């Protein structure tokens, strides 16, 4: 409430002004830069509200698209008038269409200036006028009153004035809650911030439609409700304000947008000003700007429409101070530009921008510049800080600006938010000098090897050291103004294939130096000898020539690791190496046994047959004969059967070799054996008896 006296007529005490300054400074406690609506918004609007088949969809969507285009000053590229108007007229012609549809149809027809007959409008007006008298829900009030206001603005001839405006006003007011929120209907106990915005807009409509003026006491009561509603406003850290809805399904953007629309509508119709803290108005504007470009058509409309309401309202028009670029290069001799516009990017009234002070962010030091007025460049509508004083070197600064309106009348219309803090980065190319790397002998400190480095360009040194030596890297950094510069990132990295070690490079004044005493580091290095790649990264947000450079390598010869030395942590392996096809495996079959060649076997076959041939030849030589063959028929028959039996047994053996199994063979052999034994016995006993007869004869 400290900001109130701004609008208050009397008082104006210095103490209050001080309070106001404190309040204003607290808004922009966190320095941030909010950019007004720009061309990016316009191109996004064309993308989001792209008509499909010559229409934007429902009448509600159409009205939102058209309104957004009008606010952003975009020409409608596609002609949607014909089809949209005809569907709007159709809705207006039907006496059964819901009030909500009628409202949007009226809105669309007024935006597109459709030809709607006056008689039709009169019929609609009389229908809408009958709604509020027996309406119980806020939606009915909202759409019917809203429709009547639209008709009034479109064709003032039509009689839309409410006879019982006071009663309607009362009926809507009856839905309000003690905390400034509203209920949707009398039988719904849930109170909602979104509904409060709707109710305020409806009340504004009732006031403008009233045939008799609404009592000032009633209006004051609503103003009081608004103040209570603003007690529930919520705040982000960056100084933006918004309303949150406790009821599910309504986002903070829609809620805030509803409140802003209601507030501005009410403020512009109700007599007398609505007194609100100016930081709230500016905070709400910044909230809408902080969203950037919403990706949803409805949200885009809410954002743009709310900003437009704020800009055109009687409450107060917020002015946004923004820097198109907060990174200023000393090397390129960039100029610091400031632009002051309204939230929608339209020009500001004549004003002056003052740089109150600038200081290094995060430090409590005195400011580097104080009270400097920026020069207005009317061509680009910029305020330019022409020359950065030499006291400003590279670094992160916070600039504090103040808007001074030239016309004191404007001060009643615009809110500037007092001082605006903006973070500014002043960057430049940093001079790097005297860079060298050397290997020192530990005990004497004498230089073993020394190499000059060309930092920021290319280097490839190769060094060798053992654990009794030291590695020293040194260089100097200075700003263009010749001061010492301490970069945020000054990191030396030694990379072994199994481990990586990081060291910060410390400084004293301009000189940066790091000495690695390997004797103390052997344990940290896991006793790993071998090649270490050296990488130096110097970087800072304000250093334009930041670099990350491989300097070369050092070959380290470290002692053997003792048994209990820690091992380096495993390095994550490359994901690709884990997968991928494996090497094919084919089975190695057992080699077949080595065999002699077929000819050799045949030769040996012939050899094995030789004794048989010898046997045959021998028999012939001996002159064998069959004279002993029995001549009597019975013994001859037995002799023949005996030899047939022996032949069969031999044939059975051959069969056994070729195909028969053991069981069949043994069975057959049993039978044959008995037979051969019988006939053998007969023939052998016959032969024995004949030979004994011969001997005895």
């Amino acid at each position, binding site marked *: 409430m400290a900001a109130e006296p701004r609008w208050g007529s009397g008082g104006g005490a210095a103490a209050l002004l001080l309070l106001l300054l404190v309040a204003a400074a607290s808004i922009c406690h966190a320095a941030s830069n909010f950019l007004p609506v720009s061309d990016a918004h316009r191109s996004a609007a064309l993308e989001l509200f792209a008509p499909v088949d010559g229409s934007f969809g429902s009448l509600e969507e159409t009205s939102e698209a058209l309104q957004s285009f009008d606010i952003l000053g975009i020409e409608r590229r596609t002609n949607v008038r014909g089809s949209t108007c005809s569907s709007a007229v159709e809705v207006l012609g039907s006496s059964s269409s819901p009030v909500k549809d009628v409202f949007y149809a009226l809105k669309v027809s007024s935006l597109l200036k459709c030809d709607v007959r006056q008689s039709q409008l009169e019929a609609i007006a009389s229908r809408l006028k009958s709604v509020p008298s027996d309406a119980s829900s806020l939606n009915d009030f909202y759409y019917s009153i809203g429709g009547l206001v639209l008709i009034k603005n479109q064709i003032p001839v039509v009689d839309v004035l409410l006879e019982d405006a006071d009663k309607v006003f009362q009926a809507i007011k009856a839905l309000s809650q003690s905390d400034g929120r509203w209920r949707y209907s009398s039988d719904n106990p849930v109170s909602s911030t979104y509904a409060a915005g709707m109710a305020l807009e409806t009340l504004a409509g009732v006031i403008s439609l009233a045939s008799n003026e609404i009592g000032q006491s009633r209006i004051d009561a609503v103003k009081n409700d608004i103040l209570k509603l603003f007690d529930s406003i919520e705040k982000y850290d960056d100084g933006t304000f918004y309303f949150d809805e406790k009821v599910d399904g309504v*986002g903070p953007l829609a809620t805030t947008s509803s409140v802003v629309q209601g507030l501005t509508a009410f403020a512009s119709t109700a007599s007398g000003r609505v007194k609100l803290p100016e930081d709230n108005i500016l905070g709400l504007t910044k909230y809408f700007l902080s969203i950037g470009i919403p990706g949803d058509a409805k949200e885009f409309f809410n954002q743009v429409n709310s900003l437009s309401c704020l800009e055109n309202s009687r409450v107060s028009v917020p002015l946004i101070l923004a820097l198109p670029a907060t990174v200023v290069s000393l090397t390129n001799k960039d100029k610091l530009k400031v632009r002051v516009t309204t939230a929608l990017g339209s020009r500001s009234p004549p004003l002056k921008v003052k740089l109150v002070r600038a200081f290094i962010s995060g430090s409590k030091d005195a400011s580097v510049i104080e009270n400097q007025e920026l020069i207005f460049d009317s061509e680009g509508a910029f305020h330019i800080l022409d020359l950065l004083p030499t006291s400003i070197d590279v670094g992160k600064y916070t600039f504090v600006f103040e808007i001074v309106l030239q016309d004191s009348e404007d001060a009643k219309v615009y809110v500037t938010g007092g001082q605006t803090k903006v973070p500014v980065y002043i960057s430049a190319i940093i001079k790097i000098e005297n860079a060298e790397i050397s290997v020192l002998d530990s005990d004497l400190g004498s230089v073993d090897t020394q190499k000059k480095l060309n930092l920021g360009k290319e280097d490839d040194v190769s060094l060798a050291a053992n654990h009794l030596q030291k590695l020293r890297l040194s260089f100097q950094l200075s700003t263009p103004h010749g001061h010492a510069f*301490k970069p945020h990132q000054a990191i030396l990295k030694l990379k072994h294939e199994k481990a990586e070690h990081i060291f910060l490079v410390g400084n004293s004044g301009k000189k940066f130096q790091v000495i690695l005493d390997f004797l103390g580091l052997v344990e940290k290095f896991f006793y790993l000898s071998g090649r270490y790649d050296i990488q130096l990264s110097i970087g800072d947000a304000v250093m334009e020539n930041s670099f990350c450079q491989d300097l070369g390598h050092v070959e380290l010869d470290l002692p053997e690791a003792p048994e209990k030395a820690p091992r380096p942590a495993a390095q*994550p392996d490359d994901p690709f190496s884990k997968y991928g096809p494996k090497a094919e*495996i084919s*089975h190695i079959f057992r080699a077949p046994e080595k065999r002699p060649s077929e000819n050799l076997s045949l030769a040996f076959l012939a050899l094995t*047959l030789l004794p*048989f041939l010898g046997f045959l030849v021998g028999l012939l030589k001996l002159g064998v004969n069959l004279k*002993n063959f029995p001549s009597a028929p019975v013994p001859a028959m037995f002799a023949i059967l005996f030899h047939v039996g022996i032949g069969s047994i031999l044939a059975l053996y051959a069969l056994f070799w070729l195909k028969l199994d053991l069981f069949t063979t043994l069975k057959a052999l049993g039978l044959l054996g008995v037979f051969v034994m019988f006939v053998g016995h007969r023939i052998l006993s016959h032969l024995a008896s004949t030979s004994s007869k011969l001997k005895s004869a």
Partner: protein
Amino acid sequence: MARSPLILVALISLIPLLCHSFSPETPTGRRILVLVDDLAVKSSQSLYFKSLSSRGYELDFKLADDPKIALQRYGQYLYDGLVLFCPTVERFGGSIDQAAILDFVDSGHDLIIAADVQSSDLIREIATECGADFDEDPAAMVIDHINYAVSENEGDHTVIASDNLIKSDVILGSSKIEAPVLFQGIGHSLNPANSLVFKVLSASPATYSANPKSKLSSPPALTGSAISLVSVMQARNNARILISGSLSMFSNRFFRSGVQKAQSSTKHEKSGNEQFLTEISKWVFHERGHLKAVNVKHHKVGEEDEPAVYRIKDDLEYSVEIYEWSGSSWEPYVADDVQVQFYMMSPYVLKTLTSDKKGVYSTSFKVPDVYGVFQFKVEYEKLGYTTLSLSKQIPVRPFKHNEYERFIPAAYPYYGAAFSMMVGFFLFSFVHLYSK
């Protein structure tokens, strides 16, 4: 009264429709729970959500501390995917806690985690369980003074333009992401013990993770290419997880913003974020890289039917059909690195299958001369694809006694000796008995 049992039956038959889990038959129509700490995220990140809902996902936005949220009811999961866009939440509302989320993943559901500066311990712990360790300093951010995105309004080089993307078509889609991806947030390192998690977007060698507002007093915990900006993990049950250190990389602002890398003159009209995150969400929600194998067949060469047992040294043919889910249908999967193993304790044969480009993979080989119970195994693991693990058991027997070779030429002398002996014996029996 007779109608009430009918209604009951109708209700019971509806129960299967209430649980939407990724099933190979009907993988569409999936519900995703989006937890945010501020409903403003719904609008500031709306382009990302729009790309999800336009692909047929039903998004259910809830505040992370909403006391009514639940992942499952009556033992059935209500959602198929979870998006945690609530970096600062200290405790979830309702019945959700860290264990519930891990159970959700363990039952095969997908998860997207976006952390940010000042992330809560809860979100960090969930990420740690997935193998990603965020920088422990709560104020640390990833800073890169070389590969930052040039911007007139961001001077602290925490908006990083990275194009160190994983080279994998299945994760990032086949069309190349030309523009660098914008990232602003915290970095993480991957747990080397976890072999399932890998970097998708990694930092450049000049990157480090530190608090940009204060001076460095000790070497930063994370530096260089070890920093992962965005990682993914595919669990053994094929649940997929995306871990990002930045919530703002999903935002409309970064989606729309143009990008120019410092120390480079190419200016891209639009950052690669939209393409990158859309493509990777397709992967996370199984629209790509989800394989199924059907129709595993094997038989002897020249035959059609599958035998109950193979003999050693048989020639056999093996074939399997592999398809990939494309978001709407199963398409033939084409690759040249699918391998089959003929396995008993260790692979005896490992052979790459040849593809006919219509999804059928086949090969033929000779059964080894070792008998026992073998398996045909297809263990297909490829970065970004679901794992295929098929095995089919088949015994292999040795030769029967009558299946060996007969009448070997080397044995002719033995045959000759035996038979000449037999014939000689036969003749001799005549000579001995009847010669005079």
